[in-house]
């Protein structure tokens, strides 16, 4: 079996905080999105005559919302287009949160758009709302198609809602999401056929189409073409498997010239294993060791159909890899470091632990790793972690046992402060299940670590 894990950590450890390429600052991204909103509103303003009655008021509100929704869906898709500056600067998990929040907002707006336009037209033309709804559906070009699109988006929104989401397999949810592309395509034509802002302005139609086309091209480039090109260049393939603990398996992936990927510890790839029953879906898994020029390692806990199937992968299976992604990388800082891992959240932390710089003088002490698991048998990489710690004078603390058995949560501010000398002066990195991450963050805050020095990633789709 491969011995990637026992590689000396000092070998070619990338410089912490130097993820290759430009990181888009979150504030700038939000500003660009807001500028787009202003542009959309300007479009409405220019093309709307003065309002003369209730009908116009309602229709006006409906049109603004319609334009915002048309713009918003594009933004939502762009956030998920795996654009490298966004992935580096904002991070996949925050992007996914923005996408989810934005998605709920846009679906609400689309509903309000439909209601307000129908109501507004009904008032203007002295029709009953139900009659007007029928007229809109049957007589206005492409409105029927757009209504189907709205229904699809609503359906996707519903299955993504927290309650339903828990009862669905990741795979089902992932595939239902593809319907959003169909919905966006279906809803596109009614914007030009009926939209007062577009109907008679070719430049506006061109600009709007260009926006849609650009995002479509980005999605195609970064989600389809790039992974294929990477496969051609790096020829990723499964080299071997190693069980780490019950239900947890490491997958070794061999490839050529992997150093050109500039992957950092703490980052992840989206992996697509080209094996029967698996090729059609990609999953994010963190690197669980420093990448070598010829080998990478991921470590996966079985909890869905896909991660179960991983354990049956054959060596030689080709792999498509999108990435590296993730802003959860060691910051460029000479401060001491505390790493807190929960459960399978150890995977990126394990890679980061191996990349920690030598202690910067006595002032901060060496890196400290705190590894939380509910049972000792769930601890993985114990030997590797102890080796790394010994070689660099770092400390590892294993906190096992369920909260019920212990009678208290071991990740309390007092406990952490006792385990980690000079805790409040350190950079903190937390990775684990959502509940554990929250507990650890509030404990760190209570122990005096400022929020800007707490970096975290939750293991949640």
């Amino acid at each position, binding site marked *: 079996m491969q011995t990637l894990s026992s590689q000396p950590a000092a070998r070619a450890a990338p410089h912490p905080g130097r993820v290759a390429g430009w990181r888009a600052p979150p504030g700038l991204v939000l500003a660009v999105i807001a500028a787009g909103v202003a542009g959309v509103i300007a479009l409405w303003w220019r093309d709307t*005559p003065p309002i003369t009655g209730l009908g116009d008021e309602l229709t006006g509100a409906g049109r603004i919302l319609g334009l915002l929704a048309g713009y918003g869906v594009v933004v939502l898709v762009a956030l998920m287009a795996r654009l490298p500056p966004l992935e580096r600067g904002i991070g996949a998990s925050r992007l996914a949160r923005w996408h989810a929040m934005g998605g709920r907002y846009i679906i609400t707006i689309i509903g309000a758009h439909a209601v307000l336009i129908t109501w507004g037209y009904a008032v203007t033309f002295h029709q009953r709302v139900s009659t007007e709804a029928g007229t809109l559906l049957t*007589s206005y070009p492409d409105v029927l198609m757009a209504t189907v699109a709205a229904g699809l988006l609503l359906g996707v929104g519903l299955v993504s809602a927290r309650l339903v989401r828990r009862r669905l397999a990741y795979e089902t949810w992932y595939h239902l999401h593809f319907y959003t592309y169909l919905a966006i395509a279906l809803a596109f034509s009614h914007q030009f056929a009926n939209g007062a802002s577009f109907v*008679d302005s070719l430049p506006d139609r061109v600009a709007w189409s260009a926006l849609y086309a650009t995002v479509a091209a980005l999605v195609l480039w970064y989600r389809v073409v790039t992974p294929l090109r990477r496969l051609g260049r790096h020829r990723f393939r499964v080299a071997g498997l190693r069980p780490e603990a019950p239900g947890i398996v490491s997958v070794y992936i061999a490839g050529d010239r992997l150093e050109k990927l500039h992957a950092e510890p703490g980052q992840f790839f989206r992996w697509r294993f080209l094996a029967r029953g698996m090729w059609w879906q990609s999953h994010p898994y963190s690197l669980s060791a420093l990448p070598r020029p010829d080998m990478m390692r991921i470590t996966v806990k079985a909890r869905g159909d896909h991660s179960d199937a991983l354990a049956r992968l054959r060596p030689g299976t080709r792999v498509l890899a999108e990435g590296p992604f993730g802003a959860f990388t060691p910051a460029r800082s000479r401060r001491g470091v505390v790493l807190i891992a929960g459960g399978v959240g150890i995977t990126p932390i394990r890679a980061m632990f191996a990349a920690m710089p030598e202690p910067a003088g006595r002032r901060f002490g060496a890196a400290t790793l705190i590894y939380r698991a509910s049972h000792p048998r769930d601890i993985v990489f114990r030997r590797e972690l102890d080796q790394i710690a010994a070689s660099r004078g770092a400390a590892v603390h294993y906190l096992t046992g369920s909260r019920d058995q212990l009678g208290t949560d071991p990740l309390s501010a007092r406990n952490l402060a006792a385990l980690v000398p000079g805790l409040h002066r350190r950079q903190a990195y937390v990775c684990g299940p959502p509940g554990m991450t929250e507990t650890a963050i509030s404990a760190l805050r209570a122990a005096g670590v400022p929020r800007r020095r707490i970096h975290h990633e939750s293991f949640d789709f």
Partner: protein
Amino acid sequence: MRRAILALGSTIAGIAVLLSFKTHGIAAAGTPAAAPSTPSGSGSSAAPAGAADAAGAAATPSPAGRTEAGAAGRRTVTGRVAQTARGPVQVELTLAGPRITKVTMLQRTDDGPLSNQIDATAIPKLINETLTAQSAHIDAVSGASYTSEGYIQSLQSALDKARA
């Protein structure tokens, strides 16, 4: 949850502000806004070029810049549904300033093949007349009196709305 309420609240507030600006615009400049429509509206012989000049001329001296700019922009106006004996007729006008640049039929009489056939010849004529006359003072197409009547009614209502 709090964030969701905040987002929806600010959206509603933002739209209310935008709409109220559009409404106050009329109150401030109601009469001058109607002025440019007079030459093109009354002169049934005015060529489209003349109407365009009128729009250009009107835009220059306008004192209430914002409203005038809004009114001079391109926009669409939907006419009322005119109920005829052969079914509803409804037009939508696209205007550049006061000038009608395009007429779209949102609804047309649908009363069997004959009616459709009549419409197929009558409607293009009506639209041509409208674009030339730049008003609703156009002649009915003979043999298509229901359609013509409904068309002119809907057109007039759209123009009333556009030039209010």
